[in-house]
């Protein structure tokens, strides 16, 4: 039963990573830029919701405010990254998005302080299955993660929208000649990515505390998942998200006695696991070799 509880907790955390890895994948697919600022974007949106609720607004009003913030942050990301995406200066895009993330972190720290904030002051409501427990935000994360993963897998692989998104990063000029606007595609992707990141930020901080730096660790985990799974494979990214969370959780949870490993080692284990996977499969778990013509 203990093992199953670890598995269930890992599934929730893995789904949080999936929910952030999917927008990273979408941004990468449409602009070939690793958007490192998405973690901080998510946390900023969570702060917006917290601010709305603390100011005494109704829940729908606070949610609308958080969504508006997410859209604005998406537009800011677009205005900063679009020029670099067009010029194919992807590494600068990575550094700009990283700096944007740090800016957002610093601004939230200045505005709200670095002490932990809580959405709920009462204990989290839980769902019980026999002897297994799951919090409501955890259950919501699992359900949304499952729905969105399937939805995006279909959207990316089977619809013209997904094909268009991939085509944008490959050759936007050719796509323009087919009367598609590459800029609009990238703008939409960044706004959707910011909203998704905001959702993850809120769900993650519902389960724990809201601090300005909380998004950075998650975004790095999501990146590791993206790299381990293969940057061109959404399926691989989803599988890898669970692997990079599950392995450390199992090592920490099942270690006992003299060889017990504390939770603080988790990030070290993730890094070692990622290093092993990336040395073994540098292009990702599910990436096939492509013929270059």
């Amino acid at each position, binding site marked *: 039963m203990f093992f199953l509880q670890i598995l269930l907790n890992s599934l929730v955390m893995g789904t949080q990573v999936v929910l952030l890895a999917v927008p990273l994948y979408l941004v990468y697919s449409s602009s070939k830029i690793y958007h490192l600022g998405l973690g901080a974007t998510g946390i900023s949106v969570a702060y917006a919701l917290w601010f709305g609720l603390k100011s005494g607004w109704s829940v729908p009003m606070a949610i609308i405010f958080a969504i508006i913030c997410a859209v604005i942050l998406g537009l800011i990301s677009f205005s900063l990254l679009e020029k670099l995406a067009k010029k194919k200066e992807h590494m600068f895009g990575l550094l700009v998005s990283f700096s944007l993330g740090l*800016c957002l972190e610093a601004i939230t720290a200045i505005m709200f302080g670095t002490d932990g904030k809580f959405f709920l002051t009462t204990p989290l409501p839980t769902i019980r299955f026999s002897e297994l427990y799951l919090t409501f935000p955890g259950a919501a994360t699992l359900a949304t993660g499952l729905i969105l993963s399937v939805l995006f897998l279909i959207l990316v692989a089977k619809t013209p929208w997904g094909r268009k998104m991939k085509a944008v990063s490959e050759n936007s000029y050719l796509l323009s000649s087919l009367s598609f606007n590459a800029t609009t595609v990238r703008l939409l992707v960044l706004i959707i990515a910011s909203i998704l990141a905001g959702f993850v930020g809120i769900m993650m901080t519902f389960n724990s505390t809201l601090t300005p730096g909380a998004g950075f660790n998650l975004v790095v985990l999501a990146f590791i998942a993206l790299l381990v799974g293969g940057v061109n494979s959404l399926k691989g990214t989803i599988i890898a998200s669970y692997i990079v969370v599950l392995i450390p959780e199992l090592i920490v949870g099942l270690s006992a006695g003299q060889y017990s490993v504390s939770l603080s080692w988790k*990030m070290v284990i993730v890094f070692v696991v990622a290093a092993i996977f990336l040395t073994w499969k540098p292009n990702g778990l599910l990436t096939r070799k492509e013929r270059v013509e």
Partner: protein
Amino acid sequence: MGYFLTQLARLAENVALAIGSHLTIAVGNIFFLGGSTMFCFGAYALAISQKLGVDPWLAAAISLICSFIFSFLFVLAYTKLSNDSFTVFTLASMLAFEALVKSWDDVTGGVLGIAGIMRPESIGKLKELVIFQIIFMIILLFAEYVILKTVLGRSLLGMRESKQFVESLGTSTKMIGGAAIISSSLMAAAAGVTTVWRIQFLDASFGSVAMLILSVTIAILAAKPKIRWLMLSAIFVTFLPEVLRFTPLPSAMVGHLRILIYSVMLIIVLLTISKKLMPQKRFI
């Protein structure tokens, strides 16, 4: 006087740290973000050695040897991964190292850190240490100048233009990139050693994102592969946030404002002068 000396020491440390980033990012176009990790690694290797009773100079040598060995992990990643994956991997190393330092508290002191790190007797006073740091900074700047004039420097500049071109001349870009990463790591570790001698205390927050953004900002602001640009950039970046000290802001806010300034500066620099950083496209 103490403030002035501390600022000079900070400048020397920042230059020492940024030389590595300059060599990899601005000269070789290798986006190596592990400088901050190596800065911490060098500092911890020194502090742990000194805690075990090793003489400070010998501890510094041990620290550099350990850093040299550890940097091969980055070289391995560089040879295996694509450019952008390598960048994210080196960035993740910072988090992993921080987690390692916090977790392995028997050795690193965990979140409480290691206090009372002694300076070598010959540079025991702050003034002597600052003189040593400035001499060390000049040596490192000269080392970069020499590197830029050697085959390694020329090949790095060539890699910036075209990796295929360098390969076609019979030079292994992996080897050249690896050498640049090792040099960069050693310089960052050396900067960590001198910094820890100045502050004489070490905890898990040492280095972190603030040092990374600082070194990358200096390296990118320098833009050109010339050491005078690096020096000017380091002076500007080090002293700009000092304006905040003279404002009536709470000290807790100053740290965040400093990061905000660096990040905004980096964004502006990347969006405005990135053309100078990238080789000019030639059409034949």
